[in-house]
């Protein structure tokens, strides 16, 4: 085994609002100009660091918008989000839950703070990942996978060291329930202060971590405080994290998709012509209709 070394520990870039409900730090692709393929198959990572929303009768959120060509993965840590789409699906993503939405050939959806949470206000913390789809699956049928906190498979870290919630892929023999189109490992590592954990991931997989809570040391050298993103080099297949406080760390790793990217706003395709088709289809109602 060879150590996967840390390329950079990146503090959260200046936040921007998505609608009025999500105050996000974009770690990639734009935040640090990492390029569209540096973290492939992950195309985008928006991190809503912990924020205290005041109570409000009319929920904050983001109105109707389309997606095509990829998947959105919403991981809730604090607060709750309600969503609706043009296929008639709806649901609530609560703290600890993950919603894996395969937009693929196209959906319209809207995401708002869940009504009760909105009325009470309080802490809100989420991650949204955009996971690219290979060309052959970009126009597949949209679908959802809702993985609630209670149903998530987990690995217990020996010595009462915490647990690894496996969202997708596999960790030490424990498999995540999310179906993925390309090989992906996605974990929430909930690790107690003083505990060390070794994580093995293939050398060629693009790999990163968001320190959601607490603080860690990576490979006994790099300090990664809360809200930072750890970007790994593709130079090894194992690394160690040691919690300097009780911590929660989101680990993402995936086999790169080696295909051209044509991206504009909410569309992620392979060619410019496919992007034009996406605009035309969206404008002509091919994605359906959803009231704002």
């Amino acid at each position, binding site marked *: 085994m060879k150590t996967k070394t840390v390329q950079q520990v990146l503090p959260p870039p200046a936040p921007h609002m998505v609608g009025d409900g999500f105050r996000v730090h974009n770690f990639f692709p734009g935040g640090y100009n990492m390029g569209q393929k540096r973290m492939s198959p992950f195309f985008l990572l928006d991190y809503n660091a912990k924020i205290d929303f005041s109570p409000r009768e009319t929920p904050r959120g983001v109105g109707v*918008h*389309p997606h095509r060509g990829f998947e959105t993965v919403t991981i809730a840590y604090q607060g709750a989000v309600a969503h609706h789409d*043009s*296929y*008639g699906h709806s649901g609530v993503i609560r703290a600890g839950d993950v919603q894996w939405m395969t937009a693929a050939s196209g959906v319209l959806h809207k995401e708002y703070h869940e009504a009760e949470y909105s009325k009470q206000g309080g802490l809100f913390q989420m991650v949204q990942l955009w996971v690219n789809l290979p060309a052959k699956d970009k126009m597949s*049928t*949209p679908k959802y996978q809702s993985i609630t906190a209670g149903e998530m498979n987990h690995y217990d870290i020996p010595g009462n060291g915490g647990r690894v919630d496996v969202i997708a892929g596999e960790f030490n023999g424990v498999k995540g329930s999310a179906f993925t189109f390309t090989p992906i490992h996605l974990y929430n590592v909930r690790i107690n202060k003083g505990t060390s954990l070794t994580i093995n991931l293939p050398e060629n997989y693009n790999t990163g971590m968001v320190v959601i809570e607490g603080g860690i040391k990576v490979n006994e050298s790099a300090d990664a405080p809360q809200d930072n993103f750890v970007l790994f080099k593709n130079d090894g297949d194992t690394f160690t994290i040691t919690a300097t406080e009780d911590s929660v760390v989101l680990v993402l790793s995936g086999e790169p998709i080696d295909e051209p990217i044509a991206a*504009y*706003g*909410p569309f992620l395709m392979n060619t410019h012509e496919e992007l*034009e088709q996406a*605009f*035309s*289809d*969206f*404008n*002509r*109602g*091919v*994605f*359906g*209709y959803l*009231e*704002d």
Partner: protein
Amino acid sequence: MLQAFKEYLQTKTSISDEQFQRITEGVVTRKIKKDSVLLKKGDVTSYTFFVMKGLLRAYSIDEQGKEHVIQFAPENNWVGDRNSFCFNEPAIFIVDAIEDSEVVCIDQHFFERTGQHAPQFNRFNVIALNNLIRFMQRRVNLLLSATAEQRYLDFIELYPSLTLRVPQWMIASYLGITPESLSRVRKELAKRNFKSI
């Protein structure tokens, strides 16, 4: 600083780097924050604007306080008020930014000066003016005779990506229909074109 403007002109005419340098001496750019006004109604201005980045609109406000969008100006488009710019009369339109934008401020002498330094520009300028007139004729005709759906279909053909950048009510205002009518049009289109699972 003027790179986007240079690229635009060089795709339209055969202006050399050196000619571009000469014709843009003293030309300034301006950054405008989202929702800020670039040109007020009643202003007499000697400038028109080329959009290098962002999105602006020109609109009027009627006596009831209702806004009427005359034009959207995304990247590589021109926006201004010709009453004011060409005829030194008070502007009848307001120009403001829908997104954070950057424009090139073009004064009245720019076109003349450019024609002198780069005669090939004159032909482009005549074609551009004719295209603008053609566009305006088409727009008037659609407003007088077309259904809401025809106007919308024409709009998305011309500006496919603006539906993601401009709020619905502004698109409705541009089309001369109510936001409710625009919703109905989109709903009808979805009924015909959406294949549910």
